[in-house]
């Protein structure tokens, strides 16, 4: 327990010292929010069933943070730790690999939450965004989305031979997902053929779920999203555990 606490605290410090990861999870989403604010203004839009673009932006950008934290920060940290022999050094101590993984999950999750809180705070203060949902539901949706996405990062770091190859695959997965999942703009404006592709993007389900819960829709409307994410979470945990290597 003492090791887990120390390890988690250490990883949190290291995360914040890494300018890229701190920027993409904490600052980048805010920049996007303000860009939305400038472009779309404060009027309700028919594209989002009468909600303002900014109201929708908060859950959408939360999905973006989750994707970046899971695919960029998580993949990079774990792949680098393995390639540089940092995990190998840990292997010579009595510490369990589980503690390494759990500390990593806690930190990435805490940073993702912090990113979301900053978004909500900025949205409330600057644009008085409207939250129609239930805080508790939103929280559960957020935890489920985050954990199911972090698994992808662990799997990539576990199966790709080098940091570079893990990074390339992470980017190849991340970019189409950001644009085709509806995180940045509603997929309804895309051609039908492209909309079909979005069904294969795991992030689509995060966007749908978070946006729905944010707008106050019941869970019953999102059983598919929940099913896909729970499935991803289970696969993620099993494969991460199986593919974990110290070196």
């Amino acid at each position, binding site marked *: 327990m003492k090791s887990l606490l*120390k390890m988690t605290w250490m990883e949190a410090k290291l995360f914040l010292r890494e300018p890229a990861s701190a920027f993409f999870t904490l600052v980048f989403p805010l920049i996007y929010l303000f860009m939305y604010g400038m472009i779309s203004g404060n009027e309700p839009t028919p594209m989002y069933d009468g909600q303002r673009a900014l109201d929708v932006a908060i859950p959408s950008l939360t999905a973006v943070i989750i994707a970046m934290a899971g695919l960029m920060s998580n993949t990079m940290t774990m792949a680098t*730790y393995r390639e540089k*022999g*940092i995990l190998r*050094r840990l292997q*010579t101590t*009595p510490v369990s690999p589980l503690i390494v993984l759990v500390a990593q999950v806690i930190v990435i999750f805490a940073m993702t939450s912090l990113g979301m809180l900053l978004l909500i705070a900025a949205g409330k203060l600057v644009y008085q965004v409207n939250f129609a949902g239930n805080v508790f539901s939103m929280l559960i949706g957020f935890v489920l989305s985050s954990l199911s996405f972090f698994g992808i990062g662990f799997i990539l770091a576990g199966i790709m031979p080098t940091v570079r190859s893990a990074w390339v695959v992470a980017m190849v997965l991340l970019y189409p997902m950001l644009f085709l999942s509806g995180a940045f703009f509603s997929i309804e404006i895309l051609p039908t053929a492209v909309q079909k592709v979005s069904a294969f993007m795991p992030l689509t389900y995060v966007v749908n779920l978070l946006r729905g819960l944010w707008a106050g829709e019941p869970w019953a409307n999102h059983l598919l999203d929940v099913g896909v994410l729970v499935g991803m979470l289970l696969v993620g945990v099993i494969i991460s555990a199986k593919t974990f290597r110290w070196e």
Partner: protein
Amino acid sequence: MNTIVQVNELRKTYGETVAIDEVSFEVREGEIFGMLGPNGAGKTTTIECLEGLRKPDRGTLRVLGVDPQRESHILRERTGIQLQQSNLPDRMKVWEALDLYASFYPKTTDWEELLVQLGLEEKRNTPFAKLSGGQKQRLFIALALLPDPQLVFLDELTTGLDPQARHAIWDLVRDVRARGKTVFLTTHFMEEAERLCDRVAILDHGRIVALDTPTALIHGLDAEERVIFNVDGPLPASFAKALPDAVRLEVEATRVIIHGKNDREIPLVSEVVNLLTGQGVAFHDLRTEQPTLEDVFLSLTGHQIRE
């Protein structure tokens, strides 16, 4: 004296390549035991089998009385390990590394004291990436000493360090022994093995070709030592005549080299100096050259350690 490490007919292959074969030896409590050999001789494979990081194909291993594979959790708490290749996160500070690693063990020494002893106190707030090679190695030694281990493994400890840093590290390793710990190290530096180790196993192509104290290895070699000096004028013929039969004389202008076996009753150098002063021959810049482990290695394996 207690046996700390016992290895019997250890064998490990990687595919077709035999990394080590029929390697047997013992390490005794309180000694610095060195494994010397060129790159690829099987040193790291051996040390990693002992550390429990690799599974041997055959052979029995006992480290601190336990099997390193099956009871690795016991070893982890009682051994200190410095790996040949490992790192810490770039932005982790020296004190943070010690503080973090201290939390992994049930019982540790005071890491603040280790910082002082290893000369890292001024660097306590320096991130790992900003440390020099020697400072990184000292930090790794500190991490290895953290659990107050009975046995310390040091793999290629001074590779890549400048001579000054290397000598400082040697002093540290002697300190470790002075604290009653046993040290198992690997090296491909002859000088390191000769000056630091109590006993040395010479490894070549996965087999131990010799195992003894450095002095015994050198003496067992039956090699020659040399006395070298310069004379001002020509060397008198009477000098050459007075030399013992077993000794070979070589003269190049004013430079004189005398070769002789190193198992003589009277050291060759005193015999030569007595003769020179007795005959009133003026000489200067006299020095002797002893055989080294390099010569031992060459005569045992037929090749130089660095090719």
